[in-house]
């Protein structure tokens, strides 16, 4: 790095600060909102910090113990949004669906990618392009047919329907990423094994997969995250609180005009935690994959 002028450093740090504010301040506000009594949040003029913060909202989400302020007579409201108590269950639903989708992606995505990258078969390019192009159809355009298909199979409100749909939505991307990766692996090892009489299957299992494992896991986690966050299909396929996924619960809370706001903030904080834990490995995989080697200039 060449030496930098003071002006340049000021610009860089100002930009970094603004960016950090833009991206992180909303989370801080949510956490603050979650520990303040709702009376203070709803007051005008604002008196957020008039009463000490507490963790009663979290207590309610996990144990059902109603916070004191909601029990007092004359408090601003007597109703608690009990939907926030569905959040832990919704996290579980999302995790179940997303994990299944991830395994399907890892297994079938690697198989397809290996075939596209290494085997010669008629229609290879056409099939590859078709798989990719299928993702360019907007989700809302196929929502009704998907709904009718799921209904015809009697799979409304089941994990299986969500898993099938998300697999279709994520497999093209997984296949693309892994095909590009497999192409980049050296051919010589494969050739040597083939000369020794190893089958394609054997080469895939004992050579290609161990070599490509980090990428396969990365692509799998990516499909996990997309499934964990998907909203439109989950919205009309899940119908009961036992099956609703996390995005659907929050979609429902967002249309509740009488929602308890500090409860909502607490439930968002709880709902964000799994994403933080899962997203870091995915992002590291992406940043590393993108910014080193994968794009050859």
């Amino acid at each position, binding site marked *: *790095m060449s030496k930098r002028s003071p002006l340049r450093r000021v610009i*860089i740090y100002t*930009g*970094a600060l603004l*960016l*950090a504010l833009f*991206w992180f301040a*909303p989370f801080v*506000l949510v956490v603050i*909102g979650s520990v303040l009594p709702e009376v203070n*949040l709803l007051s*005008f003029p*604002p008196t957020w910090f008039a009463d000490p913060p507490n963790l009663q909202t979290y207590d309610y989400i996990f144990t059902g113990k109603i916070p004191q302020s909601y029990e007092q007579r004359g408090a601003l409201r007597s109703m608690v949004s009990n939907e926030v108590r569905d959040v832990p269950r919704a996290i579980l639903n999302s995790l179940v669906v997303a994990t299944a989708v991830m395994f399907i992606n890892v297994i*079938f*995505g690697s*198989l*397809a990618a290996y*075939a*596209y990258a290494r085997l010669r078969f008629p229609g290879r390019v056409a099939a590859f392009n078709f*798989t990719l192009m299928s993702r*360019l*159809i*907007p*989700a*809302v*355009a*196929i929502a*009704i*047919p998907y*709904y009718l*298909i799921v209904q015809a199979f009697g799979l409304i409100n089941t994990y299986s329907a969500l898993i*099938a749909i998300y697999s*279709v939505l994520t*497999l*093209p991307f997984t296949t693309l990423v892994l095909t590009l990766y497999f*192409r980049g692996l050296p051919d010589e090892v494969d050739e040597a094994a083939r000369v020794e009489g190893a089958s394609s299957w054997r080469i895939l299992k004992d050579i290609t997969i161990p070599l490509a494992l980090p990428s396969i896991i990365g692509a799998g986690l990516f499909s996990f995250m997309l499934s*964990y*966050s*998907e*909203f*439109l299909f989950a919205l009309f396929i899940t119908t009961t609180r036992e099956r609703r996924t996390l*995005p659907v619960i*929050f979609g429902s*809370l*967002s*249309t509740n005009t009488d929602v308890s706001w500090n409860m909502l903030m607490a439930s*968002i904080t709880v*709902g*964000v935690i799994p*994403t933080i834990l899962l997203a*870091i490995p*995915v*992002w590291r995989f*992406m*940043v590393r994959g*993108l*910014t*080193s080697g*994968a794009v050859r*200039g």
Partner: protein
Amino acid sequence: MAAPVLLLVALFTLYPVGRALYQSTRIESPIFPSRFVGLENYRDVLGGLYFREAAGTTLWFALASVPLLIVLGILVALLLNESFVGNGVLRVGMLLPWALPATVAALIWKWIFLDTWGALNAGLYATGIIDNYIGWLTTPGLARMAVVVVFIWTQLPLIAIFILAALQAIPSELYDAAAVDGAGVFGRFRNITLPSIRPMLVIVTLYAVLMAFTNFDIVYALTQGGPGTATTLVTYFTWVESFKKLNFGAGSALAVLIALGSLAVILVLLRAIPKGALVEERP
């Protein structure tokens, strides 16, 4: 070995698209008996005032958010390409807005923008900047801006990282040579950086346009298309038509129109991509 994926994708692509086309020519609803009506659904949809409004709003949304995303994406990528304390934290931390379910992202911002007791109003009032609360989500123009802000909050991280990847692929010799020739900061940016990242810019523009045209979650959770129809994008309009009014025929006609619209945009943008930028040629 590719067969399972191909079969699954084909089954869940060709049949639904065919089904959508078929339905778009019929009166289809759980309430009424189904019958063929030809292109009537299309005529009703295209002639309807609400559709034209939604189409206009969608166009406005794309034109407002996509250029902003690309310009900000370049700036953020240039910033992250510098070394400074906290660069790593910023790179990893900014994943969160992108990785969150969009309904959660929209709810977080709803808490900020809410006109009755939102954090923004409370903060501005407490610091004496405003005397009356501003209806961020109840004023049509401001509500649209709010949707753009949340959209940028969730999409900028990925776009910035993609542009950053392209920046890092530029050989540093190019800059050294330009420095010897006495090129200034802007000269280097215009003559080296910009041409080098152009293929990536086309790809992220394509991505941003697709995301803008299919944005649904944010509108659903932040504004429900309101106030009035101010933030009703075509996707939200289609959802209301299909799953609230249960008018599957008109919904399918809308879906076909959206698919065609996206396809047209994709084709136009694909023509702008230099050969070999997306798929490497293999002997």
